[in-house]
């Protein structure tokens, strides 16, 4: 079962990309991008996991206890913030695109071509 997390990571990457390329709605596309990014959290946390490790908080456990990797958790936190920021900006673009084009279908945003 120790490969399952990594299979799930690859599965999420595939699902996210599939959602992006088949999307006919900008908001759907943005949500698919969120799914794609969620694969990186799972990857990072899977990489730093240790079977006998506890969460890295020494308030109520003795020092020297084996913990899971705190570094990947910090990276994943940063990643979540990036997700929030990018998503917010993309949603704003989607609102304006809807006003200008009267559509939120990426196939119908046809101002720029060639």
């Amino acid at each position, binding site marked *: *079962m*120790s*490969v*399952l*997390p*990594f*299979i799930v*990571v*690859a599965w999420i*990457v*595939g699902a996210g*990309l*599939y959602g992006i*390329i*088949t999307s*006919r709605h900008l908001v759907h596309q943005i949500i698919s991008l969120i799914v794609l990014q969620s694969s990186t959290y799972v990857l990072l946390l*899977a*990489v*730093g*996991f*240790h*079977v006998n*490790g506890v*969460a*890295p*908080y*020494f*308030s109520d456990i003795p*020092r020297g206890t084996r*913990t*899971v*990797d*705190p*570094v*990947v*958790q*910090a*990276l994943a*936190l*940063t990643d*979540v*913030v*990036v997700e*929030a*920021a*990018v998503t*917010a*900006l993309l*949603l*704003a*673009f989607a*609102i*304006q695109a809807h*006003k200008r084009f009267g559509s939120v279908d990426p*196939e119908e945003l046809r101002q720029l071509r060639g």
Partner: protein
Amino acid sequence: MTPLVRRRVFTVGIAGLLAFYGWGLSGLPAFGDYRGPYGFLVDALAIHQTHATGIVSAVNFFYRGFDTLGEEFILFIAATGVATVLRELRGEHDREENDLAEGRAATLTSDAVRMSALVFVGPVLVMGWFLTTHAQTDPSGGFQGGVVMATAVILVYLGGQFLVFERLSPIDVADAAEAVGAGGFVLVGLGALMAGAAYLADFLPLGSPAGAVDASGTIALISFFVGVEVAMAFVLIANELLEQTIVVRKGSR
């Protein structure tokens, strides 16, 4: 490409990409077998060096504080970008004056509804504050706390107070507060330079014992600024989107 062609091309491409990615993943150490050394060394040193018992916060705000600085500014600039993109454009306001009135009527909710929303505001704010100020001990910090505090403010909006809020124009205040939060983080770093240490070094007294609420010098301070920045950034973003939905409702018939 037509959607069908695209899907076929994609099928071939994604098969290759996943095979390649899977080839890489298959070479990793097994799940549950983290081997360090970065995390182990941080675990061993963090309590002594920072007096924080929450090691993730120690990494976020001390060891990799420079990352977090960049991360805060991603959020800062996203809020600025949302404000830029959704700004009131020339002529947009006049054209939609009728909708404006309609939108206002729709948001006048009863006092009871408002009150019930406001009941939640207090506890949520307190929780956000708790999370923001316990970065060094608990699984929390400015980021989570900031989002929770922002949620409290958004609850007020959703309770029908949006127009009251708009009239008081606290958005300028939120704008300034957000920038103060982001700028404060930079200045904490500069403070370390002034004190003769390296940028973002922990130059404040660490406090004792390890794990106290006021311990860990700059970690607590940075977490506070991050909390302010994040809360205000989310409030600003939500406010811009709400303004689009409620006030500038184009196409509502």
